[in-house]
């Protein structure tokens, strides 16, 4: 029976689907130079979808719908909103991309991937989960390799595809083993069966490890991160931004639901695995970021490091831990999109991507300099930007769960972070272009960029100052897990 609740539970996905179809239908009728308008349509449509979902699609008590395939709760809903926001911003950033922006397919692929991510956030069944992950990934493989004329982009797409399929195959193997032992694929039934099943610790460890490979790939945590720098560098910049935010967050959405709900019985083993992974991820990400000269590679390593910080909240395995992960991701999505947005807007005009090329940016475009300042200080974890509160919350969750050593590792790492983030700002604010004639080399912002960047910058500051509403949403989401 198709009740209004089922309708509400997949309302955002329906809207995304309609939007995708609309673009497919209209795109052939637009002239070549109007096709970028598909970006306005996508972004506007997604913002409308966010509002409509907020009005009509809010979840009440957590329920399982569609035969137990989907869990309709705040956790999924909040993540969906985040993904759609990231998608809308990415669409805006795509619009003035020289090649990708004028192709309707780019937006349709983006929406398809978004659909998959939304389903990842709500899947409560292993089969559904796997389908959702693939739906989210395959369009991204194509988007990463979207620039056919660019070898780097082709390499990025292919690399992403190879690593991605390998990781998801291993994860699928893990899923099938779980099904073999438990006899069910429903995440919510798994927990009792696995708890009663007297599985040996070693086996539990193995199952956790197999699933972690697939999800670790999505989250780009060490040692499943090798694809990230090359793919980020090669893909169209807005796609890289999307990969490093929404796609990563989708991985976290699955991790939080799957491990917290299905595997509390194995908690000691997987929290330990994740603690080790978090420590390695932060350290490797930050240390490698120190030596980067390309801004996109720097952001790639920094986003690896940030996955490590967010994992501290997962390791804590508490309500505050889950809430802090969700909050961290919300702050991180806005921040990192802002960083990639500035990079995109800059390379569109100049075609340059080295950190040294940013010399004098604050004179060439003071507004962009400030945006860069906000994004990088937020990444470094400085108030009044979102990164600070987010970090404090995950650290608080870590200390509460007696993982003080992990928090100390996180803190040492954030010191490295401050160093290389400030290093970039040094170019933006301190160094000058050759010839010191920045006035003759302005970096104008087109309207989509101006809108996207201003929205993101305000978002980063709002998350960092008026954090109560965001935190209570994150907390409501986390409450659904316990």
């Amino acid at each position, binding site marked *: 029976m198709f009740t209004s609740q089922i309708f509400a539970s997949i309302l955002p996905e329906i809207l995304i689907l309609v939007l995708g179809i609309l673009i497919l239908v209209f795109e052939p009728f637009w002239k070549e130079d109007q096709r970028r308008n598909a970006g306005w349509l996508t972004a506007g449509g997604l913002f409308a979808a966010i509002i409509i979902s907020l009005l009509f699609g809010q979840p009440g008590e957590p329920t399982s719908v569609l035969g137990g395939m989907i869990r309709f709760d705040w956790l999924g809903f909040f993540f969906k909103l985040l993904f759609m926001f990231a998608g809308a911003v990415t669409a805006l950033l795509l619009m003035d991309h020289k090649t990708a922006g004028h192709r309707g397919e780019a937006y349709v692929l983006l929406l398809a991937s978004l659909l998959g991510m939304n389903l990842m956030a709500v899947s409560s069944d292993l089969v559904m989960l796997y389908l959702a992950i693939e739906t989210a990934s395959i369009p991204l493989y194509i988007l990463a390799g979207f620039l056919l004329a660019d070898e780097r982009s082709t390499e990025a797409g292919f690399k992403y595809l190879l690593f991605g399929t390998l990781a998801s195959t291993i994860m699928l193997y893990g899923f099938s083993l779980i099904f073999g032992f438990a006899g069910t694929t429903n995440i919510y039934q798994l927990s009792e069966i696995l708890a009663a099943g007297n599985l040996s610790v070693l086996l539990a460890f193995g199952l956790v490890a197999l699933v972690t490979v697939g999800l670790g790939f999505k989250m780009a945590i060490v040692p499943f991160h090798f694809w990230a720098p090359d793919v980020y560098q090669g893909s169209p910049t807005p796609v890289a931004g999307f990969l490093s935010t929404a796609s990563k967050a989708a991985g976290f959405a699955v991790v939080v639901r799957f491990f917290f709900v299905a595997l509390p019985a194995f908690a000691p083993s997987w929290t330990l695995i994740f603690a080790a992974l978090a420590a390695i991820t932060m350290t490797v990400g930050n240390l490698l970021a120190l030596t980067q000269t390309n801004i996109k590679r720097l952001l790639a390593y920094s986003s690896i490091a940030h996955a490590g910080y967010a994992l501290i909240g997962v390791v804590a395995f508490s309500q*505050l831990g889950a809430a802090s992960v969700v909050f961290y991701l919300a702050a991180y999505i806005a921040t990192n999109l802002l960083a990639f947005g500035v990079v995109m807007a800059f390379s569109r005009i100049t075609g340059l991507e080295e950190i040294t090329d940013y010399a004098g940016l*604050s*004179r060439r475009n*003071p507004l962009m300099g*400030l945006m860069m*300042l906000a994004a990088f*200080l937020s990444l*470094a974890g*400085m*108030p*009044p930007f979102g990164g*600070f*509160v987010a970090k*404090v*919350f995950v*650290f*608080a969750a870590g*200390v*509460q769960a007696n993982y*003080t050593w992990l*928090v*100390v590792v996180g*803190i040492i790492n*954030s*010191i490295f972070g*401050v*160093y290389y983030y*400030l290093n970039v*700002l*040094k170019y933006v*604010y*301190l160094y000058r272009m050759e010839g010191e004639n920045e006035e003759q080399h302005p970096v104008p912002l087109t309207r989509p960029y101006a809108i996207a960047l201003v929205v993101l910058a305000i978002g980063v500051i709002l998350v960092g100052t008026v*954090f*109560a509403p965001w*935190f*209570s949403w994150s*907390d409501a989401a986390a409450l659904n897990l316990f």
Partner: protein
Amino acid sequence: MNFPILSIITFLPFVAAVIMLLMPADRKTEVRGVALATAAIDLLLAGWMYAQYLLRDLTGYQFIETYNWLPALGISLKFGVDGMSAPLVLLTGIVMFTGVLISWGDDDKHVMAGIQDRPREFFAFLFLLAGGVFGVFVSLDLFMLFFFYEIAVFPMYLLIAIWGWVVTREYAAMKLTLYLFIGSVVSLVGALAMYWTQYQNTGVLSFDMIQMESAGFSAAFQYAWFLPVFFGFAVLGGIWPFHNWSPDGHVAAPTAVSMFHAGVLMKLGAFAALRVGVMLLPEGAKQWSWLIMAFAGVAVVYGAYIAFVQTDMKYMIGFSSVSHMGLVMLGISTLNHNGLVGAGVQMFSHGIMTALFFAITGMIYDRAHTRMIPELGGISKVIPFATIGFIIGGLVSMGMPGFSGFVAEFPIFMGVWEEQWLVAVIASISIIITAAYIMINIRKVFFSPMPEKLEGHVGDITILDKVAISTLCFLMIVIGVFPAVMVPMVEKGVENIIRLLGGA
């Protein structure tokens, strides 16, 4: 609901910073006007607040404002001042006002002090810094204290790196930022540990510091966590052996930022170490006071000695700040009435004095284009006003009766004597060294014959500079002559600390 004076004082600089950033870049004069107006309003409000506290003979935390910010985690925006923090709020207002005055710079002679290059960004970042500093002094919530503390740290990087002395600015700015950031995050872990331990002990989930005073931390917990919390903050207070960032930062910073840095930021560290370290973990403070006393004692003498051998005026003042902040720490380490009162007054006195020193050094450097003491001379003929200012500052620095330095340093030495007379004797050596380097400096820079190189190049200072110098000098003399305008107030703050320490 009373007039929310503390939140206005704190948030006004932020608002002004945003307004300035939104103004067109070429409206330099208007930007400076907004900056000066904001600083003046903030100074008036801070002065009014201070006067109210003093004249109405208030005690304890006053002007309290509470806004629930995140009730789920017990974070609230809670502001209030006591006898310890009220003078520091006033100090910040004064330094902000005088800092804007001496950064005005609409004539070409100014190199360091006058900000020609992008004054809009300069004043905006300076005001973000000022807002953060106000926030730390008035916050009664531990989370918000950290929030503002970090806000006060990061603009320093940009201010020094962009507008600083070109030779060392990048190195110094990065060093300073990393030192301070490391210090603050180390304290943050301690603060989180305190937060959860309080929750375990009392079931209260709150960052409210007044509440935390009665959280019942066990002695073992206090012994363990006092060190990271106290020294994490004390890094910013310039305590030896973590003082290394400070002179480099002073030297590289533009004049107004040096004033802020030495005048206010270092107080931030000492104040936070006192408020969070000593007041919330009193048993830990008693356990480790010998260590602080030892470090501070070294800082006092060593800082003075290093200042003595400097040839760069700014390095000299930078190390003299280490020495004087060492006295503040020494006062804190006594944990007795006299020492703490002295520390409280010394924070204010040193803030004013060192701001004055840096302002005058900046003025000389702008005109003579050198800060090397051997290359300078005869300044008193061309800039008599600055000469008088520097002499008054020097007398304060030496702790002469009749000036604020005496009111501050005398109780500190009395307090130290009560605890450990030997330290007092050793630390008092610094007074002699200080007198020596100050007087040598005055003779050489101001009264020796002017070198030929400088003849005819060095002009007088502007009227704005004179206003700044007279304001600072006036305050030092007033406190020296009428200690009653500050000492009783600080004593009330100290009573509270003594109570927390168990009425010792």
